[in-house]
């Protein structure tokens, strides 16, 4: 059997397998369809084959980035979660996915990337903490400008800025979308019958971050929590298909539990400390060598902090030239 395809996606947090909507959609679909994927959870989009996350590297070394492309690829490999859908249900899927992308996604982008408080206190902090040096300095900012540009292009307004009016409009559309989804779901377990389909994956991917992530400006979350069937839908999927990730991280904000919360970060922090110490040592050593405080004798190296001696400086310069 051919080796499984490799899926690169963002790491998870807040009880979710991944923090990014697109990654969640792909992960959920793969679980629903039973597709065996080699999962690589990373925090560095530059290490992904496509330069962005999610990215699927297929057996033929092809890279796919858009969730819809990845799902189509999995379907071609006979991992099809929509197999049991009738023609009309398939058409409804397409329609509701479009609804999500037109009405809910702009609000998602706004609430995570544009709303000032949310971005500074949660989004930027999360990405800066999870990315490695030196990406954590500039990549979150760059991601934000890309998301803002995307929002501007979606709304057709070049000079869109964060503000109350925009927030009201976007949240109103999002609330309407959530209401419509809730009406369509009714009291069923999944949108079409008893087994989940691609529409369930898309809805889960868009709603789960809203439900789980605690944001300072949490109007979307409030509205979602008021729709019981949608909240239960998300929790159900987490319980059934992502049991390991579904555990809430203990006291995610408390510094008292760094071990449990920062378990993934310990290697990074140690590496950072080690690298900084090495860098400092190297800087001091090279300074000492260049100013002649330390002299290199043939064969072995002595790191002596002696005050500069005219004789020694002369000897060192000769050796430096030689």
């Amino acid at each position: 059997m051919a080796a499984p395809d490799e899926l690169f996606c963002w790491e998870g947090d807040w009880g979710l397998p991944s923090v990014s909507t697109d990654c969640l959609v792909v992960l959920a679909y793969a679980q629903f369809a039973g597709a065996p994927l080699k999962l690589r959870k990373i925090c560095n989009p530059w290490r992904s084959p496509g330069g962005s996350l999610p990215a699927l590297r297929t057996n033929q070394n092809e890279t796919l980035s858009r969730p819809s492309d990845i799902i189509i690829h999995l379907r071609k490999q006979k991992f099809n979660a929509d197999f049991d859908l009738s023609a009309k249900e398939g058409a409804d899927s397409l329609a509701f996915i479009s609804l999500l992308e037109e009405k809910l996604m702009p609000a998602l982008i706004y609430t995570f990337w544009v709303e000032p408080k949310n971005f500074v206190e949660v989004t930027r902090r999360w990405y800066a903490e999870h990315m490695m040096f030196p990406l954590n300095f500039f990549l979150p900012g760059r991601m934000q400008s890309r998301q803002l540009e995307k929002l501007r292009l979606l709304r057709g307004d070049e000079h869109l800025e964060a503000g109350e009016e925009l927030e009201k409009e976007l949240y109103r559309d999002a609330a309407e979308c959530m209401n419509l989804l809730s009406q369509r779901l009714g009291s069923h377990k999944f949108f079409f019958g008893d087994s989940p389909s691609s529409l369930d994956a898309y809805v889960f991917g868009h709603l789960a971050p809203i439900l789980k992530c605690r944001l300072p400006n949490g109007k979307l979350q409030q509205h979602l929590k008021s729709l019981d069937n949608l909240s239960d839908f998300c929790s159900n999927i987490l319980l059934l298909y992502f049991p390991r990730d579904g555990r809430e991280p203990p006291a995610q904000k408390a510094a008292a539990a760094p071990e449990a919360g920062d378990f993934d970060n310990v290697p990074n922090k140690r590496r950072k400390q080690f690298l900084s110490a090495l860098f400092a040592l190297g800087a001091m050593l090279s300074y000492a060598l260049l100013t002649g405080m330390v002299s290199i004798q043939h064969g072995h190296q002595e790191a002596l902090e002696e005050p500069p001696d005219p004789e020694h400086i002369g000897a060192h310069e000769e050796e430096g030239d030689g």
Partner: protein
Amino acid sequence: MSLAAEAFVSQMAGKIPFIHVGNQVVSELGPIVQFTKAKGHSLSDSLDDVQRAEMKAYMELVYNMLLTSELFVQWCDDTTAGEISRPRYSSPYSWPLGNILAYQKQWEVRRKMNAIGWGRKTLEQVYEDVNQCCQALSQRLGTQPYFFNKQATELDALVFGHLFTILTTRLTSTELAERVKSYSNLLSFCRRIEQTYFEDKKLMKD
């Protein structure tokens, strides 16, 4: 005036559709529908909640796939852009303003396509998307005269507007129109609306 005619007129007007009532100007389909609803004319009152959810979803499908595909074919395909879209867009203006504005519009549309992930799509893939969208619409329509019950709703108006535009706008290739024509129930849907609501005007040529 029926909503289908409203939407049709506004689509054919070309750019932002609008209606002028008294001293009020209302533009784009969504606000126009709200406006007429406030005046007491609404086509979707008889739908139940689930049907209304489906109607809104299908309208978004049309905006998301059909409208984006139309823009793509018009502006991101070099032959169509060069032979038809740019000359048409720049025609009201004198040279070189027309040229500059046309290229600016093209660049703007291309940026939008990149932002939503359509930047790397080929024309074939876009035709396939149109095909999928028409297939979904065709399946939803089935053998019914309209999408919901026996009465036209905003969705019928929107679908008619877009399909009619695709069928009658001259492009460098007829592939887009052919794809739509391959769904016979959509074709007869368009003909039926034309005959029912625009019977005194001969709009569709065979």
